[in-house]
Each structure stands twice: as structure tokens, then as C-alpha cells.
């Protein structure tokens, strides 16, 4: 599968000359499957540009991790929504507050929007993510609740022998030391286990994190611990803080690579998401790239 980053920023768009390399658009990742089907992860402002280049008669699946504004803001500016030949299915977390359509409609309706969902000319449908895996364009999708504020999902996309895990908003280390925790008590463990590529929240430095405990995001140290504990083979730092300009993210990335390398990992297997960046996800071979920092996790087969 191919992955293209259309928005890697968290919380709020952060345009500006100091943000040009990593980009200012909020969360949106395009996953192109071998079947030709397009799966879009989140609909932050990055989805606007993505939509401009899609082929005629697009059939699109959008997987929303949650409904915070930085993950849905671009939906109203996604050009296929305004094309009658487009078929769009939006998947997202269930909530006792209302259906997914009702909750998205709070944004795509007055006074926040000049149009309502029912006015969109495209064919659009909404679906709660099922508790079990489901098939999409020849890939297997799995969604699981993860620790963030409000109903929030992590996604795993498996195509053949290749797996991608996307958890853009996640605080797995809240109130607990990840390095020492048994796998069964780690939020997101199932969905990220042994992923060939893990795209994960890395909003804060370790110094910044104490002022943001409980906000639902991760510091770089916890990201590396999490990736290590789940045996991720490659790691992409994602959901950059809007206050972090390019130079700052360069330094954060270098720091993370250094820690990764200290544990025996290949620094080249750890990247920071950049808007416009593309990569092909391939099954990694051999053992996990990272070695655990704390006690070794329980025995588990390599799959």
C-alpha cells in the first residue's frame, strides 16, 4: 500500500513560512490500496488539497479517528462532496450522543457551515466502525478505542502481508509507565502490534508534556516506548504541535532518532511526517526494529 501525507499538524492549522517543510494542514493521510481503492484517514484541512486531484467518479472511504475539529475541518471543503458522481462512505466511532451523521452534522450545518449534509450532491453515507474487522477494497480494517478525550479510534489496515497502524491522537502513558506495563494494560496495543508502519501522535517534547498531562497526546519519549512495546517496525511521528516550527521539529526528530538508535534501532526507520511526503509500506522482515527499554514483554509469536 502507498501512503501520502496531506496534513500532519495537530490541533489547529498552522500555516506560515516557518512551517513550510512539515506543513500547516491538520491530520489527513491517503492510503492507496493495491485494488485501486482510496482510503483516507481523517479529514483535517489536508483533505481539501487531496480532493482536488482525485479521479472522476471517485469511490472514497474516509475513516475518522474522532470528531475533534482538526480531524474533520476539511470535510466541508473536500471537493468530491460537491460532485454528484462521487460515492463517499465515512466511518467513525460510535457514541451514545447520537449517530455519526448527526455528530458530523453539528459542523456541517448552520451557523458553522453554509450548507447542510443533505444538500451535498454526492452520495454520502455514514457508518459506525464495527466491533469486528471489516473488508475495504481488499484490505482488512480494524478499529479500536484508544486513550484520548472523547470516543477515539486507532486504525489498522492490513493488505496482504503489510500492515499500517494509524493513531494520531493518543496518550497511552497517561498515569502509567509504559516501559514497565504489561501489554494487556497498554492502550492501543492490539491495533498497533507488530505493524510495519506505525503513524503515531508525537505532539510534545518530554519537557512540554508535564504541562499537558491528560490532554490526550503523547510526548516523544512515550512514543518511542509505545512503538517499542508493540514491536512496530517503522515509526512516523505525527500530529505536530502548531507551536512547533520546522527547525524545532528537525530537532525533535533528531532527538527521537537518537533514542531509537540507542536502543539498537535503525534511525532511518523513524521519520517525522511531512506534508506531501509519500512512501510505500512494505512488509518488514526479521525482528522488530526497536528493542524494549524496560522489562521484555511477554512471549508472543512473531507473525
Amino acid at each position, binding site marked *: 500500500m502507498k501512503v501520502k501525507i496531506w496534513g500532519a499538524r495537530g490541533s489547529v492549522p498552522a500555516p506560515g513560512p516557518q512551517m513550510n517543510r512539515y506543513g500547516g494542514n491538520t491530520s489527513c493521510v491517503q492510503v492507496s490500496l493495491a485494488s485501486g481503492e482510496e482510503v483516507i484517514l481523517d479529514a483535517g484541512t489536508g483533505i481539501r488539497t487531496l480532493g482536488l486531484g482525485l479521479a472522476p467518479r471517485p469511490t472514497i472511504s474516509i475513516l475518522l479517528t474522532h470528531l475533534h475539529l482538526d480531524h474533520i475541518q476539511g470535510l466541508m471543503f473536500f471537493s468530491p462532496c460537491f460532485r454528484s458522481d462521487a460515492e463517499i462512505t465515512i466511518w467513525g466511532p460510535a457514541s451514545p450522543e447520537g449517530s455519526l451523521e448527526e455528530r458530523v452534522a453539528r459542523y456541517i450545518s448552520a451557523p458553522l457551515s453554509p450548507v447542510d449534509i443533505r444538500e451535498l450532491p454526492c452520495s454520502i453515507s455514514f457508518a459506525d466502525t464495527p466491533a469486528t474487522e471489516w473488508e475495504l477494497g481488499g484490505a482488512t480494517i480494524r478499529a479500536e478505542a484508544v486513550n484520548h478525550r472523547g470516543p477515539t479510534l486507532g486504525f489498522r489496515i492490513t493488505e496482504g502481508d503489510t500492515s499500517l497502524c494509524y493513531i494520531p491522537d493518543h496518550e497511552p502513558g497517561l498515569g502509567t509507565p509504559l516501559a514497565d506495563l504489561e501489554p494487556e*494494560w497498554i*492502550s492501543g496495543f492490539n491495533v498497533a502490534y*507488530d505493524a510495519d508502519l506505525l503513524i503515531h501522535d508525537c505532539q510534545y517534547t518530554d519537557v512540554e508534556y508535564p504541562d499537558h498531562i491528560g490532554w490526550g497526546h503523547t510526548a516523544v519519549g512515550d512514543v518511542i516506548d509505545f512503538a517499542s512495546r508493540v514491536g512496530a517496525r517503522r515509526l512516523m511521528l505525527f500530529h505536530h504541535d502548531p507551536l512547533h516550527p520546522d527547525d524545532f521539529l528537525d530537532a525533535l526528530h533528531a532527538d527521537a532518532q537518537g533514542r531509537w538508535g540507542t536502543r539498537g534501532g535503525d534511525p532511518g526507520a523513524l521519520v517525522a511526517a511531512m506534508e506531501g511526503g509519500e512512501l510505500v509500506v512494505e512488509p518488514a522482515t526479521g525482528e522488530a526494529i526497536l528493542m524494549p527499554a524496560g522489562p521484555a514483554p511477554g512471549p508472543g509469536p512473531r507473525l
Partner: protein
Amino acid sequence: MEEWLAVSDRAQKPLELILARNLLTSLSTPAFLVDSDGRLLFYNEAAGAMLGRSFEETGQMDAGEWTSVFGPLGDARDPIPVEELPLTAALRDGRPAHGRFCIRSVDGREHTIEASAFPLIGSDSAESGAMILWWPRADGGEGRG
């Protein structure tokens, strides 16, 4: 894929149980966490201090096992059946339940407590377990050995 599912489904608890454990870890109120079968998944340091043994020493236990070790006991110091405990009512009815009884620490000391059990129901509306907080009663019985 089936193999992956088998491994990972066994590996991770539902999110609400993970968050409940994190909460209990930070409380000075003694507390238990059980799954939907009544299996003891975790108890915090405050509970361990009262029971005379830390969770790290005991580990997870089935309902029959932990009730035989820690009681609970009625007024006549007779064992209270699991099905009559507040946690069982919470799991069975999906509602909070409260009770008063004795528990026994590993050194044989008895503690009279009040306990409240709260069912934990996840976003998928499935009941995944219960959280039980307890308080030593002020009207006697504490630490009787």
C-alpha cells in the same frame, strides 16, 4: 490474520478497564478491578496495604480464588457467596451496588468495610467489568485479628 487476532485479543484489555486501572492506581482509597466474570484483574496499593499483600505478589485471580483468600465474611464470620457481593450485583444488573461486610488480610486480620461497586460499560455498550472501592467502617471491627 486469524493468528494475529488470537494473539492480540488475548493481549489487551478493553480501554475502559485500562483507564480504570490507571485511575485506581492514583487513589488512596482501596479499590479492586474485576472483569465481567468477577476475575480480579488489579487492586491498588491502598488495598494491598489493607490486605497485607501487594497486587504484584498475588497477581490476577479467579473469583473463587480471591474470595477464598480475602473473604468476604458476614457478621457471623461466615463466607459470603460471590453471588451476594455488591460487585456481582453490579455486574449482573449493570447498576451500582453497596454493601457492608468483613474482609480478611493474608495475616488473618479482619477489617470491617463498606464497599461500593460500579459497573464499567464501554462505548460499545458492552459490560467489561466493575470497579469496587471500599472504606474501613468507623464503627468498629477494624483490624480485628
